[in-house]
């Protein structure tokens, strides 16, 4: 009897230890991840600046940083995993949508439609993304280390006011510029007749994507504004709930 009681308490202690070590492991991983991503986007920023200073033009800039961009932006998919297993307290869907829209821009627009890679709008959204991501990942890093400098917090919750609309403009202009090339090449499209009895027109898909920015952008923007008021000014805003 006594030994089984002992076993019981030992098991309990082990479970508590497991919980504590799991969250210590999670914290360690997240810290490493956020430092790595901050570093990655810093590298991108410096590569972009160096290219422009050396060459004096933005033509060819995308090609020079394409591989690094693809690596770090794609790696951000693990953030969806973080939300799914619960080590980050954000909605899986919100994170999923944000990461997917980035993946879409990188892989399905800029990477695959070479003719638009030298557009100015590409540089616009690349600059916006770089500044945003460096701010965001360093914010998370400092937060995890419990030493958050106020200027990082300020940057995270203020820069977006200008950067977010600029980024949207850059992305939309890029997709718009890509449209004629998509139509001409018929890429990613499937026509009837075929044995799957389905058709897909990438051209019209892109138009729908562009239109979807209209309802989505204001929602995300106002969500960020509400977050800003709560974090910076301690205001509690009761949201209309269902």
């Amino acid at each position: 009897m006594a030994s089984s009681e002992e076993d019981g308490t030992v098991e309990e202690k082990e479970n508590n230890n497991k919980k504590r070590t799991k969250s210590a492991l999670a914290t360690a991983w997240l810290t490493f991840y956020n430092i790595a991503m901050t570093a990655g986007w810093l590298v991108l920023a410096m590569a972009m600046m160096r290219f422009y200073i050396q060459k004096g033009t933005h033509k060819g800039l995308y090609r020079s940083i394409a591989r690094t961009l693809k690596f770090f932006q794609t790696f951000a998919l693990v953030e969806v995993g973080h939300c799914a297993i619960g080590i980050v307290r954000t909605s899986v869907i919100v994170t999923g949508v944000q990461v997917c829209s980035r993946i879409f821009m990188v892989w399905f627009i800029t990477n695959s439609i070479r003719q638009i890679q030298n557009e100015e709008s590409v540089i616009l959204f690349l600059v916006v993304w770089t500044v945003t991501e460096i701010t965001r990942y360093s914010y998370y890093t400092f937060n995890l280390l419990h030493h958050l400098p106020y200027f990082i917090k300020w940057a995270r919750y203020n820069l977006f006011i200008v950067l977010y609309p600029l980024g949207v403009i850059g992305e939309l202009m890029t997709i718009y510029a890509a449209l004629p090339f998509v139509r001409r090449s018929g890429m990613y499209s499937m026509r009837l007749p075929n044995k799957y009895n389905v058709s897909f027109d990438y051209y019209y898909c892109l138009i729908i994507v562009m239109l979807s920015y209209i309802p989505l952008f204001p929602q995300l923007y106002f969500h960020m504004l509400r977050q800003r008021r709560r974090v910076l000014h301690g205001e509690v805003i009761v949201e209309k709930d269902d």
Partner: protein
Amino acid sequence: MWHVEILDAKTKDKLCFLDKVEPNATIGEIKSMFHKSRECHLSGKSLKDEDVLQHLPVGTTATFYFRDLGAQISWVTVFLTEYTGPLVIYLMFYFRVPFIYAPKYDFTTSKHWVVHLACMCHSFHYVKRLLETLFVHRFSHGTMPLRNIFKNCTYYWGFAAWMAYYINHPLYTPPIYGEQQIRLALIIFLFCQIGNFSIHIALRNLRPPGSKTRKIPYPTKNPFTWIFLLVSCPNYTYELGSWLGFTVMTQCLPVAFFTLVGFIQMTVWAKGKHRSYLKEFRDYPPLRSPILPFIL
């Protein structure tokens, strides 16, 4: 006489204080004093209209929390609307109503007999659903939130249009394995339609008319219900089977997508139902899975 205090579930504001309530008053009677559809719960536990005041775990002063569920619509209305849409929409594509396909195809018919068969199956499926809504189903809840009708109709009507467009298209390609494939698919489809109907009848017979009692469903004399031995929600299992049959019959990717999305949703519902069966009945058969025997 009892006192009943009613608070808003979200803001905790005092909405109402009733000081002369009969001990044998039901929750439904207390609710009717508000003239609005509201959900009533007792610090976390949701209550039913039939619950009687003196049988609740409260003293002679009870505190209830009311939550306004918003505009409601009856389940029957929602079902009828969401099922009539696909029926009508599919037929519009089948008869090649103008402005869908190129003008030279207006009001023509497909030269493939599987297209006619598919139309009959699809229409039969939704007519069956409409009749079941009117004459078979016994609903636990009278109403659901109004916004659901927009969500549900978009889903059903949207997918129906997407599928029907390709199946009835002048450039439709019939199944690669021809008659064999179509015949097998038709058998699966009909088998599962009968199965699905049998389950609906069996579930209806569990519940006497007008009541809201809950019992464990068991296999009956009808062989189609023997699947209850292995599955908690065989109606969903048969529904999946019907749509798999339809997918094979039409060999159409949009139909496969529709089947997949439906399967995911039904699995979520089946798991929920399975869990609530396990919670409510101590003696629930352990061999049963929510939707797929032994797998899911």
